[in-house]
């Protein structure tokens, strides 16, 4: 194969892959990627509806002081859901703080997902049982862990794949570069999924990168890359499915950039009015991924009013259960602070634990 062909094989499509137009009509002709089965699309719709409701509930919980902070992914729903639908149960996911909805869509207990943000512990779920790494805050650091896990799986002979989520801002960190390069040199079965939601807190993409698109970073590592309309679940799911298959079949890593938008502020604590105008946000309302998929599925006769109602019922159920459980104060034990520093506490930690224990006893009695 000529070098020119190699390069072409690595570069993304010049325009983001899209199956469904903003108005919900199918794009004609459809992209070369195989369309996901209808069942997947319906499942994707349901999980987006439920995820959106979870997201709104979590934001509400911050107002009631039940969460220390919450970073909403409203508007990125298609990415959140497609990201996990593209994976098998035995595949690993390396999410960021932004990706709570993805974890709920993966089936994790919503309360355990929110433990970090409620503040009773750091990671609330079992990463080994769920095959979901702790939500990562130090930007881009999780991408190299994902490569390590992919190498571990490969060496153990498992045909599982790893997917690492990262934001547009995170791609500027050195660790993202090192992760792409390691994955390429080791040919690790890992998919890097960039949710380009146009902002890193207040910093717009134009101040983050001068690249034609973030997906053009792949070629510089020999990593196959693609860019996709991140608000078109059909497109995100089909491209990620292809990327995961590529990785699973030994083709090495794959970089996917999804063009989407963060509808809410960075977190409930952020004041987005300081850096973007409401017109911009309204324009993106028109591109809402859930409305788009609903129109598309109805147009294809795959979804009707009952199906929509059922999805919303499921969403309300989850929200109600979450509300109730989050209203109870979590049980915490200060002495647990010493239990997990090491498998066996050092003599120094035992002394410090004893000091705290005596304080607690004194306080009680």
């Amino acid at each position, binding site marked *: 194969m000529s070098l020119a062909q190699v390069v072409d094989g690595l570069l993304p499509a010049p325009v983001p892959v899209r199956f469904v137009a903003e108005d919900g009509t199918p794009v004609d002709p459809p992209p070369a990627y195989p369309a996901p089965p209808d069942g997947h699309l319906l499942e994707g719709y349901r999980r987006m509806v439920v995820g959106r409701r979870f997201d709104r509930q979590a934001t509400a919980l911050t107002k009631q002081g039940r969460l220390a902070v919450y970073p909403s992914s409203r508007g990125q729903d298609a990415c959140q859901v497609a990201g996990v639908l593209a994976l098998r149960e035995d595949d690993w996911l390396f999410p960021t703080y932004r990706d709570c909805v993805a974890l709920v869509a993966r089936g994790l207990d919503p309360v355990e997902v929110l433990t970090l943000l409620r503040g009773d512990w750091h990671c609330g779920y079992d990463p080994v049982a769920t095959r979901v790494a702790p939500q990562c805050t130090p930007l881009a650091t999780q991408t190299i862990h994902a490569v390590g896990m992919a190498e571990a799986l490969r060496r153990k002979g498992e045909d599982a794949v790893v997917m690492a989520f990262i934001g547009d801002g995170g791609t500027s960190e050195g660790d993202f570069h090192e992760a792409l390069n390691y994955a390429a040199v080791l040919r690790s079965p890992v998919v890097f999924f960039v949710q380009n939601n146009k902002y890193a807190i207040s910093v717009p993409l134009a101040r983050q990168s001068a690249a034609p698109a973030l997906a053009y970073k792949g070629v510089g590592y020999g990593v196959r890359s693609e860019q996709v309309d991140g608000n078109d679940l059909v497109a995100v799911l089909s491209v990620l499915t292809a990327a995961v298959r590529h990785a699973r079949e030994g083709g090495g890593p794959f970089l996917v950039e999804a063009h989407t938008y963060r509808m809410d502020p960075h977190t409930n604590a952020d004041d987005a009015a300081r*850096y973007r105008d409401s017109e911009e946000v309204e324009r993106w309302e028109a591109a809402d991924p859930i409305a788009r998929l609903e129109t598309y599925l109805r147009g294809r006769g795959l979804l009707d009013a009952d199906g929509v109602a059922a999805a919303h019922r499921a969403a309300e159920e989850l929200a109600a259960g979450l509300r109730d459980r989050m209203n109870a104060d979590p049980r915490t034990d200060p002495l647990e602070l010493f239990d997990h520093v090491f498998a066996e506490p050092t003599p120094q930690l035992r002394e410090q634990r004893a000091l705290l224990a005596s304080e607690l006893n004194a306080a009680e009695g």
Partner: protein
Amino acid sequence: MTVISMAQALNLALRDALRDDERVLVFGEDVGPLGGVFRITDGLTKEFGEERCFDTPLAESGIVGLAVGMAMGGFRPVVEMQFDAFAYPAFEQIASHVAKTRNRTRGRLSLPMVIRIPYAGGIGGVEHHCDSSEAYYAHTPGLKVVTPATPDDAYWLLRDAVADPDPVVFMEPKRLYWAKDETSLGERHAAGFGRAAIRRQGRDATLVAYGPGVPVALQAAEAAAREGVSLEVVDLRTIVPFDDETVVSSVRRTGRCVVVQEAQGFAGVGAEIAARVQERCFHSLAAPVLRVTGFDIPYPPPKLEHSHLPDVDRVLDAVDRLQFGDEPDVLHLAREAS
């Protein structure tokens, strides 16, 4: 006399520094239009323009490395690390270049730059947002390390840091950002750069603290006073350079010393303080120098941080252990003499 918060004082210091010296630049993550996540740079881009205060791409090693290059080129960058733990990606740039460039080049290249780091906890922040990282920098030769405890010091120490010919790591105790205090920013504060301040005079023991530990020490002294124990409180203000003179003369007077530090204790700045004090005041000490510090654990989740943070009770417990009225144990000296 005006009453302002430390956050306002820092913002004012940056504003005045930008106004007084056109070589001064402010950059980092979200410091532009947003004004920083703590609003310390609020309004600076508006007032001084994109060229003087701007957002960088999201990469801390890049921020510090860019500042190194611009300082080599004659500017005086003041960069913000968004949170303590997010300065770690810049550690190589800080330890291998920021701290060493003047020495490497025999003073031909100096790096007058300031790295502002909001640090420590007490604000209910989630992991990575509450680390006490001052010791990493204080242990690195070639860095000055500063941490204010009052709005007045925040203003003047930051002005001094920006004016300093050498790199300064400026540690800002997050939980004091909103603490307001009387300030007279017009007149220069008494204590200069490198000098500690005696925040409260006392006879019976000296509490040595800095940054977030200072209000805790002052509250403890207040409470002790009610019990008739008179505690002196020394606020280091600058960890490097260290003001041995003020600390030592206080402990020589009181004969007892407790160090208060929020950071995990092991090999922290408090260890250095205790080591220095006993080296220099041994024969004045009636009891060992005790340390009240955070535990040697990763910073706790928000709902548990109160159990970790040194508080008034822990400081008072330590003071109680200073063997007031005890005769020192001289048995072993007797043994030795015989």
